[in-house]
């Protein structure tokens, strides 16, 4: 008997507590559109999606530092210089995004609601493995857009696991949804080759390895890395001193997530970078 407009069949389709499945059932999740991919020699693309660029994350003594520049571009146009690419998903998880913000922000929103929906309906927190997999699945579902040349997203996911051993975990993904756990650092986006070079160098031959660094030292390295990326990559914003625009940085630790205040980043920048 159809008893109400309210759906009560939460366990009959998909896993229990699966929020994307609920959205799909209600027709609220945009399905992946698989269409013809652009052929070689086809007419010049006239439209280019807005894209966000360089993000990085590494483990230091106080947890995981996640940083991103603020620039969003479409082709060679700067669309926005205060884009937020480091997003809080829950009390212990951060997703940082490189790629198309329209898709990435929607993914972050689905992810945020998925974790909360799971906790509320199943009366327990989703495991770290479950969270990592949830993002992987969203990327996989989005692959149709990627094949069409729009909507590519390459995120970094940082989270703190309190069971069984309290420890911070860092993952990066490819556009198809493969997840890779990083031992020390991760960087994605167009400016990432330079960033990876710097982090690799610092970790192996710097004054001390990344995981032994203090917060100030970690902020300094992140600023230098983004500044270097901006030097050669026009899509990366780096630091705009005249506009007082600094990269966004957040730290994941056992206590939760802290957003570093701009004046602190500015002070470290002035002392060690400028």
């Amino acid at each position, binding site marked *: 008997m159809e008893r109400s407009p309210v759906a009560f069949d939460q366990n009959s389709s998909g896993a229990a507590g699966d929020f994307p499945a*609920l959205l799909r059932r209600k027709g609220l999740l945009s399905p992946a559109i698989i269409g013809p991919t652009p052929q070689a020699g086809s007419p010049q693309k006239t439209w280019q999606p807005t894209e966000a660029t360089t993000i990085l994350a590494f483990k230091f003594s106080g947890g995981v530092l996640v940083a991103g520049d603020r620039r969003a571009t479409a082709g060679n146009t700067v669309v926005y210089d205060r884009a937020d690419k480091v997003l809080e998903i829950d009390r212990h998880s951060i997703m940082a995004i490189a790629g198309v913000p329209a898709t990435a922000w929607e993914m972050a929103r*689905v992810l945020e*609601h998925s974790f909360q929906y799971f906790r*509320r309906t199943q009366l327990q927190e989703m495991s770290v493995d479950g969270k990592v997999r949830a993002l992987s699945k969203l990327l996989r579902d989005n692959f149709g857009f990627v094949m069409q040349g729009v909507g590519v997203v390459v995120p970094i996911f940082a989270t703190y696991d309190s069971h069984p051993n309290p420890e911070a975990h860092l993952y990066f993904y490819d556009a198809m949804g493969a997840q890779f756990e990083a031992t020390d650092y991760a960087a994605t986006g167009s400016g990432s080759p330079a960033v990876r070079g710097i982090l690799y160098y610092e970790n192996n031959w710097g004054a001390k390895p990344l995981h032994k660094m203090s917060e100030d030292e970690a902020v300094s390295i992140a600023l230098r890395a983004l500044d270097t990326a901006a030097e050669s990559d026009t899509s990366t914003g780096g630091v705009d001193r005249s506009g007082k625009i600094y990269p966004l940085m957040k730290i994941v630790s056992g206590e939760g997530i802290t957003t570093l205040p701009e004046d602190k980043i500015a002070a470290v920048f002035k002392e060690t970078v400028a």
Partner: protein
Amino acid sequence: MIEEPYRWVEAIANRREYIETQLAPGSPIAALGYRDGILFLTVGRTRQKLFEIYDRIAMGGIGHPGDIERLRMAAIELASTEGFTRSAADVSLRRLVHYSLSPVMKSAFEQVYGAPYLARMLFAEVGQRPSEDLFLRVEYDGEIATNGATYGQARQDFAVLSGTPQSRELMEAFLKSQHAPDASFEVALNSALDAWSIGHMSLQASDANGLPERAAISKYRQEQLAGRGIEAALLERDASMAIRYRSLSDTELRPLINE
């Protein structure tokens, strides 16, 4: 078959009586608005009765666990899809209960060939100020009672739910005289425990009239707490956090109880 209207009315009356009997032993739940939020409290042995619905909404229920579960799930689904497609600020308890839950519960109750919901629920939504706190009690037939200042009823900063109307009214009478919206957490906690004790006493001895003596309440409370656990949850008023719900453990509450 029930063809005549009279037979339908009779069937509904029987059904009401049956549900009331089923709900009668339900342990009371008290929700008190205080300075820093809303405190939900009950005392029980096993089953969880207090639940998080959305960022600012919590629920407590008595009845059949299967029915409570279906309604809880429906409330979470509705709130989550609304919060996702619009924003968390658009999720409203008033709309959730009035437009979605109540009509469903009413039609289930009145369709005499189907099963009704064996559940009575108490919802609360925390506001920026105590005067914006909303409490709604929803009955198995979809009837809604609110704390709002409507039709000359004085606005109350608390709401209770219990197995019988008599038990509920005693708890309300007690809180009306004892509870103030600017109370501290400790004071609210102890008022809630007293209200629970009064409600529970009334369920045990339904012939008693009026509020019991102060000393009798304390004695009863002490006896009950020796063998049962406190289940409590908070909706915090602190607007710096998105998610205001937090469950409180028995062990963190025990030291705050006045003996």
